[in-house]
């Protein structure tokens, strides 16, 4: 089910009605008393060569979706379709055919690399296991990959602890690229880096995308981070997607009240362009174990109506889709 018809072609990956619930166990016999509804019915598609930005507050489920796509998490319901194949229920063995196509870059540069292995071994390992190149060419390929991410070859004999956060992220990117993937899930790859380094890494990701025709699912918790690199942006709130549109449309013409609020929180450099009226959201995020009835956002929405408390709004629209009764 695609929300945006940029071109009439098949998407690289489609997520359809994805739900991931975690059971809550209480009591003497550990009975399941409820569920944390981390992802509650999410559908989108990503086309080859594009970047879909996925934004939302902490706990909205965006990381869960990212991990579900690379099958680090198992969805409770719904489908994940990659290049026409349903990969949702595949066993570990069956997934091995798809693994090289779906890679991930992690948020924390300090836990994403094995501290006991040298860089050259970290990057060479997937090459060896999947037999991407001949054994005699492995180190050559490692050199190429390091070069691609902007690290000098002679760094490869070093250990992760000798590198800065930004450099470690580059190594993580090189590792992800080693299998020649089609899709890379970028799980907040720059959130843990200094601001000046963030720009470098984002540039790198952007350049790599153009050169290798990569597809990205770029997860972040602020609109600012995704603006530069995303073609389209999906905004999430409490397990559901509330708005999907092209990047420029989200910024110029945000329709969902939550997107509006996120945007207002995004610092605008030019004081003349700053919005005079700010929408301030009240309250805290409700618990995903007990989401509000009806529209999830109604408890904090400044324009909430009666119907919002009772019914769940559908995501409606083609180029610019919104899930809100007030807008539709």
């Amino acid at each position: 089910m695609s929300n945006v018809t940029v071109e009439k072609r098949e998407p690289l990956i489609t997520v359809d009605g994805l739900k991931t619930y975690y059971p809550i166990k209480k009591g003497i016999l550990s009975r399941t008393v409820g569920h944390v509804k981390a992802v509650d019915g999410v559908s989108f598609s990503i086309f080859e060569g594009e970047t879909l930005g996925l934004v939302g507050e902490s706990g909205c489920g965006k990381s869960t979706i990212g991990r579900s796509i690379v099958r680090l998490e198992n969805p409770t319901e719904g489908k994940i379709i990659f290049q026409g194949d349903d990969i949702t229920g595949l066993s570990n063995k069956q997934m091995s055919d798809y693994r090289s196509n779906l890679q991930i870059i992690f948020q924390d540069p300090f836990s994403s690399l094995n501290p006991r292995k040298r860089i050259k071994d970290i990057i060479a390992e997937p090459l060896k296991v999947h037999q991407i190149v001949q054994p005699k060419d492995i180190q050559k390929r490692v050199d190429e990959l390091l070069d691609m991410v902007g690290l000098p070859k002679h760094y490869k004999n070093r250990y992760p602890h000798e590198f800065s956060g930004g450099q470690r992220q580059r190594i993580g990117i090189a590792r992800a690229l080693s299998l020649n993937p089609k899709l890379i899930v970028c799980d907040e790859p720059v959130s843990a880096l200094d601001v000046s380094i963030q720009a470098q890494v984002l540039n790198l990701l952007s350049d790599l995308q153009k050169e290798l025709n990569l597809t990205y699912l770029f997860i972040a918790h602020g609109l600012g981070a995704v603006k530069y690199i995303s073609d389209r942006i999906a905004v999430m709130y409490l397990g559901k997607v509330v708005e999907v549109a092209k990047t420029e449309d989200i910024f110029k013409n945000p329709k969902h009240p939550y997107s509006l609020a996120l945007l207002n929180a995004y610092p605008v450099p030019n004081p003349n362009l700053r919005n005079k009226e700010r929408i301030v959201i009240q309250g805290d995020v409700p618990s995903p174990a007990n989401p509000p009835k009806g529209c999830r956002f109604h408890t904090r929405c400044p324009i909430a109506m009666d119907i919002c408390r009772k019914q769940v709004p559908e995501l409606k629209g083609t180029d610019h889709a919104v899930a809100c009764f007030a807008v539709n």
Partner: protein
Amino acid sequence: MSLVNIKQESDTSLGQVIPIVPESTIKEESYLQMVVRRYKKHKLAVIGLFVMIVLGLMAIFAPLIAPYDPYAVNETFSAPPTPLHWLGTDQVGRDILSRLIYAARVSLMVGVGAVAISVAIGTILGLLSGYYGGKIDMVIMRLTDVFMSFPHLMLILVVVSVVGPSLTNVILVMGLLFWTGVARLVRGSVLQVKQLDYVKASIVLGLSTPRILFQHILPNVIAPILVNGTFGIAAAIIIEASLSFLGLGVQPPTASWGNMLTDAQSLTVLSSQPWVWVPPGLLIMLTVLSVNFIGDGLRDALDPKSIK
């Protein structure tokens, strides 16, 4: 990491500009080198290691060092130290010094043997238990609960008395009992390491489970195993000594520091022949103390909380 002479070089194919640190200012220190460096800071631990090496050499070269055959009976028995027999002779007439030297073999074999078995079993079960969780975890953990419910010495005594006392039996029984502690430790470490992103990356990269377990998880879990193993050697030595002392471990005429103390249970020997029982007791203490120091030094050297 100190940056000296930051040079800007356009070094990559994508035309990126990044600061480069000259090679000479960064030392590549492997994990092993770091551990050794930190270990050397503990004087006691270094002394302990030295002592153990001496004892080890003594055990290996016993036939060359010992003045007499430890089994040989001489004319004088229960004799006090003389120039002929530096530590005197025991009740039967065997030279005590020679027996002392040969007994080092027993203690070291027991210590290393029991720990080797228990670490092997415990590590594998702990890895499986921690990584797979679920039913496997439950079964293994319940098993460790049951085994740990028996007081160690009592259970060993009971089993050894049932299967018969001997050096091999003692080593085997200890090995089959101590694995529980190792398994718990490994499981705990695995649970922590399992969460880390590089393990998750390994899964996404399609690496096989044995590879993940042995190449990614195990090396990062080894530190507590080493420390626990070292203290385990100390414990094993004491338990063997206790068993042999009670007559349920290494049987005479084979010499063990423990069974050299058995005779001291008689008040006559205790009061009038201190040369018989004091030296073996002191040696046990020295060995165990040294191993404990080593363990302490290792623990601090491997502690990730105090890096650099």
